[in-house]
């Protein structure tokens, strides 16, 4: 098993040695086989004796499931040891083991059910706890989302001014009943004072503009500073979007404290500050994290979920659905988001629970009514104008734009984040946040489209120009004289033209700032900025199309359906489609995204345009790189996430992936009955492996089971505290009965209860595609590789990820030594000299790096060997082909 750390990418250290040592593998196997033959008979007896204990599957769980053998007098360990069966930080859970544990628990409760009324109530409580926990999660996430919405709106308006009559109202609420608002300036009212009015006493003029500008920057900076300080001091895990990490956690990874109380509190508080600071970020991703924190915290109330990591992940799946449900006001979209994007293991039961959690959360948010419009979402469109078939072309073009933007954003953002991760620049998170916030504020204020809240901008872009609209975007020429009917397309007025270039500037600004903002050490979501970029682009295209149709309504394209005076193009719809396309390009979601946008806007008749745009953007984006932003971040951070969407197409075998590799020291194994406590502790202290195969004996290498490092350490510690007579040279045994010992030896220690007697095994010739499939479908943590019943090595999830990474890089196929010969030959045939050159250069650089002369010598020998071999292969290949 690999060491504790998250695995590092670019694993190709052993690449040179592989060909040279290709043959040693066989020898090793043969040798072992010979040794084994001597011992076959007595091993079999031993194994038979072992196998006689019935139903010993998953005895490892807690000792409770172990077959209780009352024959042994020294059996003290039958009671479960506290802590056994739990996991360390940054470890991967074993889904199979957890599921079995849960089934065991369930069986126990079911069998006790009929005993008494109390037991019956307990079983009822247990059955209902799943629904209870998602209800509580939904309630909490709805309430928190309401709090975040209200507080973020208020704080956002605090940058411009303050409501004197009631300090806790935002701008719109402040002018709630005021009748002084006019048609053109809807948000002006005497109760609301801008900072210039308050400080300088005048509302107009350059002085007040500068004052407002200054106050805007001041507030933005202080909000950003507070946010990053709180994150740094109280809960560093509260930064970022959280969706990549939640994806990883749901796939079975443990990050302690990531979904804890402090993370929840700090994320909620700082999310408001981050949104209000005007940075180019949204609150949707962090809301998913907040909801998952709620789910995790509430699952501690129910032993069914708190004690089982796999069951807990079901609750978290439901919680993430609730998170999206409240973030967008899209309950169904939330469920689908959980299904399509975040969840790893999603049975039907979880689907229903997610559905229910989303429902409860949406209901709570609706009853809090944060936007004061009795709707869950800010951007609800009310137009129902039809669209025409020809318009699919601009929609698809928007899809292409979305895909390009997505691919560009992922590349650029990952490059920037990698820089932050690997260079010294990442040491100054506070400074970075403040710098980005300052630049954002300075550039954003002069442009009215960037100054306002991003979700309000999206709302404005989505709305169609009607007679009721007075924004600059709707200043068409004919509207000026006020007499004409409003239902048709009109020539653009000066307002529209100025709005257009302002929008173009806003687009460029948003694109640049979003790249640098996502990944800052404050809570930052990606949905809203992506949607804003798409909406701006879409609106621009929409207005362009509209004007095109107005000036060229006799073109054959427009002739059919766009007659003079008819309302044929809706720019707001283009904005909507653009927003969906850009979000699709970045996240590579499809179904859930269309449903979210549909629920967000309420435009049922626009599903086909949305689908077309989202699909196109996914295709275009996939052409440049198959992974979405979340997968890219998972890869950047090196989380052990085994994506079930990717296909494994290579022909490697389990033998080539397993550890130990050819030149590594042999696999660390434990023997079942001839180790002492001291030796066991020595093995554990010297190695960093997380688990050890247990074998019959050193001579016969036959597999008995698998024991986890954490369990062993806890069990030994526990035994030394509670059992008398356990000293350093006590014998440790994993068998049913204690081995026969000399009379004066100390009492032996039985560790059978922590032994997993049914570890997953594959043979060394199993193709990796099958192994990968087993890992994906069953959620394994590790798998032992055997040959004729002898343990050869082990494959862990991290080994598989490293292997996939290696294959993806496809650096010279030397990496996979007994690679399919034809690949090698074709490669060598086309570029034997090139390969040789690469090899020489690589080795030279390696020589420079190593100071050790011994190593140099080795490498030189290796190089000559490999060069010879390559020449040989090249010769063969050229003569064959």
């Amino acid at each position, binding site marked *: 098993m690999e060491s504790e*750390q*998250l695995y590092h990418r670019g694993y190709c250290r052993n690449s040179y040695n592989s060909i040279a040592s290709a043959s040693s593998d066989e020898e090793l196997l043969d040798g072992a086989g010979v040794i084994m033959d001597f011992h076959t008979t007595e091993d079999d007896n031993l194994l038979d004796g072992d196998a006689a204990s019935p139903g010993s599957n998953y005895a490892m769980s807690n000792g409770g499931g172990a077959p209780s053998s009352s024959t042994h007098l020294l059996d003290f360990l039958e009671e479960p040891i*506290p802590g056994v069966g*739990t996991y360390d930080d940054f470890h991967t859970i074993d889904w199979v083991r957890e599921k079995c544990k849960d089934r065991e628990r369930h069986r126990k409760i079911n069998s006790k059910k009929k005993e008494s009324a109390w037991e019956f109530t307990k079983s009822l409580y247990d059955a209902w706890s799943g629904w209870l926990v998602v209800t509580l999660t939904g*309630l*909490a996430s709805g*309430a928190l989302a*309401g*709090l975040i919405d*209200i*507080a973020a709106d208020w704080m956002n308006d605090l940058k411009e001014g303050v409501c004197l009559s009631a*300090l*806790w*109202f935002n701008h719109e*609420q402040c002018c*709630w*009943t*005021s*009748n002084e*608002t*006019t048609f*053109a300036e*809807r948000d002006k009212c005497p109760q609301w004072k801008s900072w210039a009015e308050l400080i300088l006493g005048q509302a107009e003029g350059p002085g007040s503009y500068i004052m407002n500008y200054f106050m805007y920057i001041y507030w933005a900076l202080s909000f950003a500073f*507070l946010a990053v300080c*709180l994150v740094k*001091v*109280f*809960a*560093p*895990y509260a*930064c970022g979007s959280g969706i990549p990490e939640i994806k990883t956690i749901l796939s079975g990874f443990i990050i302690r*404290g990531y979904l804890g109380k402090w993370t929840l509190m700090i994320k909620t*508080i700082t999310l*408001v500050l981050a949104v209000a600071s005007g940075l180019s970020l949204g609150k949707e991703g962090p809301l998913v994290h907040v909801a998952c924190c709620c789910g995790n915290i509430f699952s501690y109330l129910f032993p069914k979920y708190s004690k089982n990591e796999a069951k807990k992940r079901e609750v978290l799946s439901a919680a993430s659905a609730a998170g999206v449900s409240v973030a967008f006001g899209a309950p169904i979209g939330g469920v689908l988001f959980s299904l399509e994007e975040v969840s790893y293991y999603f049975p039907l039961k979880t689907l229903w629970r997610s559905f229910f959690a989303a429902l409860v959360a949406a209901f709570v948010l609706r009853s*809090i*009514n944060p936007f*004061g*419009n009795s709707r869950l979402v800010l951007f609800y469109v009310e137009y129902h104008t039809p669209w025409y078939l020809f318009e699919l072309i601009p929609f698809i073009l928007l899809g292409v734009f979305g895909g390009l933007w997505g691919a560009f954003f992922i590349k650029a953002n990952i490059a920037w984040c990698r820089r*932050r*991760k690997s260079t010294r620049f*990442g*040491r100054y*998170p506070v400074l970075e946040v403040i710098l980005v916030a300052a630049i954002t504020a300075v550039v954003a204020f002069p442009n009215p489209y960037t100054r306002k809240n991003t979700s309000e901008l999206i709302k404005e872009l989505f709305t169609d120009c009607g*007679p*009721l609209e*007075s924004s600059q975007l709707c200043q068409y020429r004919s509207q000026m004289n*006020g*007499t004409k009917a*409003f239902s048709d397309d009109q020539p653009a007025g000066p307002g529209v033209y100025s709005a257009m270039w302002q929008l173009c500037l806003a687009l460029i600004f948003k694109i640049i700032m979003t790249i640098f903002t996502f*990944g800052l*050490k404050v809570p930052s979501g990606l949905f809203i900025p992506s949607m804003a970029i798409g909406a701006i682009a879409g609106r621009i295209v929409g207005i362009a199309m509209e004007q095109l149709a107005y000036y060229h309504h006799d073109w054959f394209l427009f002739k059919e359906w766009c007659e003079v005076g008819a309302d044929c193009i809706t720019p707001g719809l283009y904005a909507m489609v653009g927003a969906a396309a850009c979000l699709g390009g970045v996240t590579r979601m499809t179904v859930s995204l269309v449903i979210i946008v549909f629920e967000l806007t309420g435009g049922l008749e626009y599903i086909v345009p949305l689908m077309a745009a989202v699909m196109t953007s996914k295709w275009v984006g996939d052409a440049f790189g198959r992974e979405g932003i979340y997968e890219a971040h998972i890869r*950047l951070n*090196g*989380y052990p996430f085994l994506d079930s969407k990717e296909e494994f197409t290579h022909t490697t075998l389990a033998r080539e992936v397993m550890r130990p590799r050819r030149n590594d020291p042999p696999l660390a194994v434990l023997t079942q009955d001839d180790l002492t406590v001291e030796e066991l*502790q020595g093995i*554990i202290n010297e190695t960093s492996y997380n688990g050890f195969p247990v074998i019959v004996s050193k001579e016969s290498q036959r597999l008995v089971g698998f024991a986890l490092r*954490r369990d062993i*350490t*806890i069990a030994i*510690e526990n035994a030394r505290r509670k059992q008398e007579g356990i000293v350093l040279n006590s014998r440790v045994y994993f068998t049913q009965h204690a081995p026969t010992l000399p009379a004066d030896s100390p009492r032996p220690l039985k560790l059978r209860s922590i032994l997993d007697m049914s570890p997953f095994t594959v043979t060394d010739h199993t193709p990796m595609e099958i192994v990968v499939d087993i890992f994906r479908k069953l959620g394994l943590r590790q798998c032992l590789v055997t040959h004729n019943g002898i343990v050869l090595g082990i494959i862990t999830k991290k080994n598989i990820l490293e292997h996939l990474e290696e294959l993806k890089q496809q650096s010279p196929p030397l990496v996979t030594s007994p690679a399919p010969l034809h690949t090698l030959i074709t490669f060598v045939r086309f570029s034997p000299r090139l390969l040789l050159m690469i090899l020489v250069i690589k080795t030279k650089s390696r020589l420079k790096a190593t100071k050790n002369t011994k190593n140099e010598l080795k490498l030189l020998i290796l190089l000559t060997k490999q060069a010879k071999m390559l020449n040989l292969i090249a010769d063969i290949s050229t003569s064959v082909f």
Partner: protein
Amino acid sequence: MLWVLMLHSLSIRGHYTSSLLATLIETAQTQQSNSEDIRCKCICPPYREVEGQIYKQNVSLKDCNCLHVVDPMPVDGKDVEAYCLRCECKYEERSSGTIKFTIIMYLSILGLLLLYMVYLTLLEPMLKRRLFGHSQLIQSDDDVGDQQPFANAHNVLSRSHSRSNVLNKVEHAQQRWRRQVQEQRKSVFDRHVVLS
């Protein structure tokens, strides 16, 4: 001193999760008492020589139409219908109590956190230095990362066995929390293994 603050912040979290109940109750209360919380907003576009205008009135949902809300009517009798057809009236409600409660609660939590942050980062190191001198500080920094595999097991086991009084427990919990945060800070900001 420390654990008092800790307790305090924990109890805030209690408030925080039960905020839903409070807001719901408050919503129910304010909706009856505060008539300012409903409005009917009519937006009337420009019509002939009449400027566009926005009207707001405190009327109930059934009265929310142009005829009730637009007052005074800017056009004379025969044009009223044509004018009103163009107006769009929307009934909206809010609950100012919820908003007030939310904002005040949010600000108080934020304020407490800021105070605690200032205490943790500025005051506490100063106090510690004055009380224990310099050596103590270094020592407490050192024992953060123990890599011994058996120490971990020790922790796991001792967690379930220590039966001490409440005060010790709180102190212990706080120590553990601080160690965790320190560990998180290391992995996020220094080693960049997560969340970069």
